[in-house]
């Protein structure tokens, strides 16, 4: 069930209305059943996998809390093995087997290990990471083990963030399911507006840009450098609008019911460095890696070489988290490299040319450089293969302003797409602020966004990019 589908529209109204009609004690069961229904709309049988991890981690949490020492650690390791095992089996098995086949082929042997004919469960990496977050936090003593099985299951399966995050922490989410949330007009308005804007980002911007991007990246050999450059810039905005649009709808849906999910994006393309970009992009994942990988590895509190190693390890894992493909690994590695270079350069620049950070030109240059680096890395993320990514980069090197532009968009649609991006940039910059709280403004704004979505939206039932992870 996609957020940009009528099925979700009907489902959301039913669940939200029932939520406020039934007593608080019954709400967890309503949300849990709804979440099961929501998940089963994708591939029904995979609910069993989700059930498996929920049961394992529920009992692991209780056992971890009630034991100490080595036993405690063993229960944590068992839980992590179960979670990572599911991830490995469904997401990485065939990838590893592919690489084994490649190596075996290199030595003239055939690979005897069979391939698995499976489809990746939707959002597996998201809910697995959220489940792992729970057991780790219980282990660290920062979260009490949840005794209510239904509430714990809801923590993993809460439908707004089940398939593409934000990856929540138990400290933020679990207690909210115990609390009573009466209907609040403030929550309703804030949530509905966030849903509307998320839908706008998805169907008006992301899915329109996707038509050009899919066309260009689908025929990289026939495309000119200029077409590929435009398509790559479009992709930067497509993936942002797609993913942040999803997050907005998720956060807004939960907000209406009084549940506050963590923010996942904060105008990332205004970042002035790669380091800052990762504080603004997919915040729930980057903080997950910071808390559970980077800091346990030593973080910044070790020698410069070790810090670099830690950074590379985190970004390599982040790349792998996104997908079982070398293109994602390279994407992650590139970000790791960028960060290391950035650290070196900033040290050097501060010594050689003291730059005033508030200088507008410097800020614009930094932002543009960061955006260019992020866009270059997205090429590997979007390209189907490493070879195709290299072809694109090769064509970008030989770019000419006289190249033919062929993106399956006419001049009007190309211009319209650019205007959409500009509007987004202006909105994200925070330079336009309107108080929409009064009903006389709120209702027309919602109606206007709905009309824009209907008339300018692309309704091709295109799946959200991050669902595949």
């Amino acid at each position, binding site marked *: 069930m996609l957020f940009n*589908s*009528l*099925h979700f*529209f*009907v*489902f959301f*109204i*039913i669940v939200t*209305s*029932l939520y*406020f*009609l039934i007593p608080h004690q019954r709400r967890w069961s309503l949300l849990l059943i709804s979440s099961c229904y929501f998940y*089963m*709309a994708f*591939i*029904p*049988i995979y609910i069993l996998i989700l059930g498996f991890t929920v049961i394992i981690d529920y009992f692991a949490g209780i056992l971890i809390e009630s034991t100490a020492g080595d036993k405690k650690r063993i229960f944590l390791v068992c839980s992590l093995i179960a979670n990572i095992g599911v991830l490995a089996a469904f997401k990485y098995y065939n990838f590893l087997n592919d690489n084994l086949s490649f190596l075996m082929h290199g030595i003239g042997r055939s690979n005897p290990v069979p391939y698995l004919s499976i489809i990746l469960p939707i959002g597996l990496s998201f809910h697995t990471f959220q489940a792992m977050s729970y057991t780790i936090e219980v282990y660290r003593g920062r979260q009490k083990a949840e005794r209510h099985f239904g509430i714990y299951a809801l923590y993993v399966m809460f439908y707004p963030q089940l398939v593409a995050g934000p990856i929540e922490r138990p400290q933020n989410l679990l207690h909210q399911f115990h609390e009573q949330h009466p209907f609040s007009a403030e929550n309703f308005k804030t949530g509905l507006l966030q849903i509307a804007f998320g839908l706008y980002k998805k169907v008006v911007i992301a899915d329109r840009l996707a038509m050009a991007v899919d066309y260009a990246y*689908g025929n990289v050999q026939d495309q000119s450098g200029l077409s590929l450059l435009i398509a790559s810039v479009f992709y930067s905005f497509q993936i942002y609008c797609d993913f942040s649009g999803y997050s907005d709808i998720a956060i807004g849906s939960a907000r209406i019911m009084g549940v506050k999910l963590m923010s996942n994006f904060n105008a990332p393309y205004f970042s002035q460095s790669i380091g800052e970009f990762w504080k603004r992009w997919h915040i729930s994942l980057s903080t997950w890696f910071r808390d559970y990988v980077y800091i346990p590895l030593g973080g910044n509190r070790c020698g410069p070489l070790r810090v670099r190693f830690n950074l590379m390890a985190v970004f390599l894992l982040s790349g792998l988290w996104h997908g079982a493909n070398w293109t994602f690994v390279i994407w992650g590695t590139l970000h790791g490299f960028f960060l290391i270079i950035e650290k070196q350069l900033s040290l050097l620049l501060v010594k050689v040319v003291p730059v005033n950070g508030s200088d507008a030109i410097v800020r614009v240059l930094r932002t543009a450089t960061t955006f260019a680096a992020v866009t270059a890395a997205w090429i590997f993320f979007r390209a189907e293969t490493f070879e195709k990514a290299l072809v694109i980069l090769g064509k970008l090197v030989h770019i000419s302003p006289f190249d033919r532009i062929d993106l399956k*968009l*006419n001049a*009007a*649609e190309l211009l*319209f797409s650019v205007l959409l991006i500009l509007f987004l940039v202006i909105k994200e910059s925070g330079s336009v602020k309107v108080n929409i709280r009064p009903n006389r403004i709120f209702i027309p704004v919602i109606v206007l966004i709905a009309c824009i979505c*209907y*008339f300018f939206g692309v*309704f091709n*039932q295109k799946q959200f990019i991050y669902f595949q992870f």
Partner: protein
Amino acid sequence: MKRSVLILVTSFFVLLLAVSTSNDVMEAVFNYRSTSSLLKSDKYFYGDLFGLSYLPRFKMKLDFATAEVGREKCTRPRTINLFVAGDSYLGEYYVKDHTPFCGVKSYRFLRVNLSEVGMVEPIKGETNLLLVEMVERDLRRYKDPDYLLQKLRIEDTPVKLTIRQLNAVIKKTFFNEINRHIEYNLFSYSCFTPIKEFKASFNFTFFKRIAGDVYLPPDTSRLLFLPTVDPLSRSSSFVSISDEEIDAIVRSLNHLHHYYTKKGFDEVYFSAIPNPVSVLYPGIGTYNNLIPRIQNHPGLLIPIVNIYDCFTSTEQDIYFKNDSHWNMNGFTLWLNEFNKILERRAR
């Protein structure tokens, strides 16, 4: 007061979801609304391709007037039992009973795309013919031998519920075409058509873009079903098809022929209806020649009703401009070809 409104809203949407979930109820809704003037939908009334695109210039009522013009006369006695396992090209808009068929006394139509296809049983002691008809865009299904077994229930395969099947059953029971059904129940009313037409016109005028699975050919004279044109789609006339796949399709068809003749049918025929784009615009891509390659395959044993050659040589307009199906001219040409075969059998 607020609570009562909330209960009312919830009840409405629960009912909507329940109706949209059930395939049987939706079929009843569809049948009811197709005859109701109050709840009429324009989705299929002006052609399925108009219903996908809502481009106002293609808003034309489909003409199914069964003019006898061009239909060749037949004087043979009616002795044949004709069974047709076909798709919408031979649906009830085109054929209502046995009368258009030469020498046919009884006619039974089995919709192969629907699940209620029963076992086809020939009538003992009489002439029984079976025609298997399918549009070109669906032909590649035949490369999978299981397709025949499932769709035509050729063999009494024991029911063994695997996880994959269970998954398919749940999906089909609770989530089959649910978005299309909700759209039909909520927004597919004549009163919404002007808004949809405005949106379609706006997008076409400014962006030269058509919504839905619709393609506008270079001469812009008609609409085509996009999956039959898009070379990346398996239904396309321009998707590359290997010789091995053609061999597999032919093997399936031969298997079908063998099975049903063994079962007691006097003859089994196969007819592939060309995609409109294959006949009208084969030059907008590289036509994969799916139908000619099957029909001219040296290993093909099943007799065919060849309409491809007839369609590609005729000057007549044989397809609707706003629908993916043939018009009555196209149907009549096909009928004449089939009746020539039936006439020989009725002697």
